[in-house]
């Protein structure tokens, strides 16, 4: 059964230095609050996994949480580059970041294989691409019936997966809807899991065949209203495009980035505090 617990406690007890950690959410429901809490608690040596590392991984990488990134598309969606990610890869700042690079199809299948307790994912993929030349974890196997060559990549099996969802009930069953990405697979592929939710309700009122994660398959459920900001939670909030654009100049300079993270994340107690300070600084900027 999932414990319903404050996010701070969930991160303290479930995310350890050196862990392989996946924060998932495909544009929608990105667990920003949980990412901030991992930064605040100073986690180090993480292998970060995520199909689309965007602002939250830019922040975690820039703050030195990660030594390795497993991913398939790293950018600021609709805006451009992730400057902290690029600085880590291109200049090794704040330290070298090892990368293991896949395609979306590869990553999605690797999560499915992880959730299915298979050691590897099988797909038609990577043909003609240079990715297998730079990623020794892209191999090829032969079909025992047709002798066709198919791509094989290791399953993703995170120590802990973190997602954001719309609702949980008081027992800790979680409901999410809209763009689901790979979140269900990422949770089921992981040894431990944290789900931040917009609200806790008496009854999920889930439609038939909805995406429900049963409480007993989760480690912790943490109420964090707005915890996906600047991403969105369908039915609760809209994506804040201004913030995605505002991030670009902040992240360009190491000093600006550090100062911003200090003020907005390290010096705030929690995500509500972050939102308050951010509101102030955005007012100043206008």
């Amino acid at each position, binding site marked *: 059964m999932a414990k319903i617990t404050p996010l701070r406690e969930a991160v303290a007890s479930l995310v350890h230095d050196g862990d392989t950690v996946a924060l998932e959410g495909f544009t929608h429901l990105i667990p920003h609050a949980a990412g901030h809490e991992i930064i605040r608690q100073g986690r180090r040596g993480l292998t970060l996994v995520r199909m689309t590392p965007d602002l939250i991984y830019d922040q975690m990488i820039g703050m030195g949480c990660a030594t390795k990134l497993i991913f398939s598309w790293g*950018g600021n969606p609709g805006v451009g580059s992730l400057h902290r990610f690029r600085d880590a890869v291109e200049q090794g700042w704040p330290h070298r970041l090892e990368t293991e690079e896949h395609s979306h199809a590869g990553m999605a299948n690797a999560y499915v294989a992880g959730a299915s307790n298979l050691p590897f994912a099988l797909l*038609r993929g990577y043909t003609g*691409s240079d990715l297998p030349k730079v990623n020794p974890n892209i191999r090829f196997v032969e079909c025992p019936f047709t002798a066709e060559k198919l791509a094989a990549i290791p399953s993703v099996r995170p120590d802990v997966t973190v997602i954001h969802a719309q609702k949980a009930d008081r027992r800790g069953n979680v409901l999410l809807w809209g763009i689901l990405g790979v979140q269900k697979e990422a949770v089921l592929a992981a040894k431990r899991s944290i789900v931040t939710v917009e609200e806790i309700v008496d009854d999920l009122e889930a439609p038939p065949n909805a995406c429900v994660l049963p409480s007993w398959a989760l480690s912790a459920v943490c109420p964090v209203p707005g915890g996906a900001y600047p991403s969105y939670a369908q039915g609760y909030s809209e994506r804040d*495009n201004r913030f995605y654009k505002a991030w670009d100049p902040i992240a360009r300079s190491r000093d600006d980035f550090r100062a911003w993270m200090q003020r907005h994340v390290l010096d705030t107690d929690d995500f509500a505090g972050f939102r308050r300070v951010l509101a102030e600084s955005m007012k100043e900027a206008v």
Partner: protein
Amino acid sequence: MSAETLDFTATEIMTVAASRLLKDGTVCFVGIGLPSTAANLARLTHAPEVVLIYESGPIGAKPTVLPLSIGDGDLALTADTVVSTPEIFRYWLQGGRIDVGFLGAAQVDRFANINTTIIGPYDAPKVRLPGAGGAPEIASQAKEVFIVLKQSPKAFVAKLPFVTSAGYLDGGDARAKAGIPGAGPTAVITDLGILTPDPVTKELTLTSIHPGVTVEQVKAATGWDLKISPDLKTTEIPDAGALAALRDLQARTAAAHGQAGGGEG
């Protein structure tokens, strides 16, 4: 520039020309940015039955404004259904159900291979680009592929530093020999013209030039000695209806998001 070209920008004719290639009823796997603009323009004009699929999960999306990212809420709310991202890649793309993959690119080469990974050596990159995303499998598994990007010597290079997604590899029958199922990129639409692969060598050839653009301009914007089709056509100018629909769409998008179009993300 001729009088006709005064009515639209180079980006507009690129977008309209790209959208015209999408036939009604086509099932299209849409990349974000320019491909999404062109595909939605097609849906709002000549191809109301086009089926737009985004890698985040929406099938049959009919957004009223352009998505800024691959997972905007409007995509989900207007779709016939929203499935998981693994299902999109497994059952719908790999399943062989996509007619057209519509992609952007940072760089293409003369055989329409795509780079979105890196400039410079992989282990000591000059520029780290976002990476593959869905493109490698879209490029190989869609029945055909359209690529849309602005033409410049930096973007159109003789040899890519990194092949992220396969076009025709080394040309000729190299793609088929590598066992790649789809037909590959059948058109590269730019702000200067349309390039299509030579039927035999698969080398990208300028087969249509936008009105007001000279062949010299296109050659100068290409990092190899670009072949010009002996049968070179002039791209039809955007009709008033398409242009109005595009501008409406972008105005709605700007009003909704505070910016137009969506980047390459």
